[in-house]
């Protein structure tokens, strides 16, 4: 399976974060693939970015939601949000992951 998709690596989380991030991606019309992973959000986000065919990855653990790119230093994700958080901001993270793929200007986090 190698269709173009943002990779979403999930270590843990309450489901809401996952739902919101995915909703952001769906609204933008960019496919995503959810994969179970082990590690902290930053590390699995970087791994997701490095393996995603569109080179955009998201990592989720109980504490954090991270948006990452393979070209960035592994411990410096492009965006890092508390995972238990205003849903609008997590949705916007999903939008921005999609916009990186589409080449559209990023949404400001509400």
């Amino acid at each position, binding site marked *: 399976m190698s*269709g*173009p998709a943002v990779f979403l690596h999930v270590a843990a989380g309450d489901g809401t974060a996952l739902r919101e991030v995915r909703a952001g991606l769906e609204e933008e*019309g*960019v*496919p995503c693939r959810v994969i179970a992973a082990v590690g902290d959000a930053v590390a699995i986000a970087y791994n997701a970015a490095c393996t995603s065919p*569109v080179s955009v990855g998201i990592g989720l653990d109980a504490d954090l939601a991270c948006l990452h790119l393979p070209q960035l230093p592994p411990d410096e994700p492009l965006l890092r949000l508390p995972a238990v958080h205003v849903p609008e901001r997590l949705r916007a993270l999903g939008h921005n992951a999609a916009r990186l*793929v*589409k*080449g*559209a200007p990023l949404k400001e986090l509400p």
Partner: protein
Amino acid sequence: MNLIVGVDIGNSTTEACVAMVEGGDVAYLGSGLAATTGVKGTAPNVTGAGRAIAHALRAAGRAMEEVDAILLNEATPVISGLAMETITETIITESTMIGHNPQTPGGEGLGVGVTVAFDALARQAVAPGDDAVICVIPASVDFEEAALVLNAAVARGVAVSGAIAQRDDARLIANRLAQPIPIVDEVTLVERVPLGMAAAVEVAAPGRTVRTLANSYGLATVFELTPEETRVVAPVARALMGTRSAVVVRTPGGDVTDRRIPAGTLELHGERAKKAVDVNGGAAEIMDALRRVQPLTDVVGEAGSHVGGMLAGVRETMADLTGDPVDTVRIRDVLAADTFVPREVRGGLAGEFALENAVALAAMVRTSRGPIEQVARALTEATGVEVIVGGVEAEMAVRGALTTPGTATPVAVLDLGGGSTDAALALGDDEVSTYHAAGAGDLVTKLIGSELGIEDRELAEHVKTCPLAKVESLFHVRLEDGTVQYFETALPAETFARVVALTEDGGMVPIPVSHGLDRIRRVRRDAKRRVFAVNALRALREVAQHGNVRGIDFVVLIGGSALDFEIPELVAEALADHGVVCGTGNVRAVEGPRNAVATGLVESYVRERVLA
């Protein structure tokens, strides 16, 4: 109760509609269309008409046997022709310049020196004290070898200030030089670069354009020219404007000329006046002269001139089509449009192109074709149904267009077709005045094709009728409006980074030209404006009382070109200052801009029966 079929034979399209008529009431059951077969108004039309009727009957769920009568329009005896003539030519009389834009030139800045063969430099034939040199590197030399020799020459004290390379390896060479110099590469005909001549190589920073070589006084500074010599090289500077890299070699007597090809004069004969106009003056002057001699009775071109040949060609084609003798063919309207054609520069070294000016002419010819009765008879034979030849096309168009919700007289109908833009104005109920303006969809297609250098007519038609997109990766495209569309499977590699036309059915047609999306879009919209915005105003002025468009309340656009995704908008824009409501027709609130004349035939048939 009568089952009636209205049929409209247009130049390109034949349309039909099926209606059930009872007293003054009419119920439309279906409609259909087919490509017109043969020249409009001649017997071969029957095939296309039969197809259109069959489509309409199928949509209505009826059979030919049930039809009581077929109504046919009295076709206007006008057809249209197209011609185009180039009026400028760029010639490099000796090899003086290379203005092409390789994607990856090397180095940056300006280098001035005497051209010397790579071999000579390798053989150490240039001494340290000599003039600065521009090295000419043929394809046989590998980039590492090239860099080695250039570095060695500099180490020996030779001033190497620039290079001209045949292969695509300017950056590879420049990256290996101890002292970077500007290098222009991909000069295909490098063997034609004259040696031992003063030359300059300029490469601008990424995103910028050459400054010195595109400036007449920059050339004068570099080559120490007199004012007289500067005047001669001015066209070189002009030709280099906008390129990122350039080479100019100063050859004695070398020259670039910007020649105007004498195109000849056009003689416009009006009912009351006559005017001659020089085609080299461009479209505006021709259209201005036309306005002054209206109504036009004929147009002739100066014998032996380009435009003479051009008009003779139109006349002959028309005569061939209609079977009329050539000398009875009269031109009743012309539309001139300024255009340009990309042409390879004569004498260039790297396949340089120049945009040459041209004038395109559409002409409207009145023919003395036999009456429509001939077609009617053939159609009766083919269908076994009585065929009634009904009112004038323009009146029928108005009557059909007025079934569009929100319209009322005074109304002008603009039929945006393939060959002509026809205006019909109805002030009250029956007085309809009309004008057939030369030039419509076919001229737009032709302008788009020639300006982009697209030979294939069908491809040009796609560029005309479809929005564009740029293939940004093998899995997504960016549409004209900036939005992105994603695909699950890879697009064909040859579409990568190309501009494609998106057909209505979701297809993707690559446009094999080097221009960016925006340039193609601009060409497309400009062509539409030059034809339809100009013709809409022109035709409305001809039919309006005292030429005053403001007196018209509603303008309804119909015809095939009104289906276009932007032509109605461009026409509305052109009419915005004239206080009219302008929109695309929606015949019977369902047909959009199609089927106006066919519907008008039925409407008029019903009205006459009620009045009778």
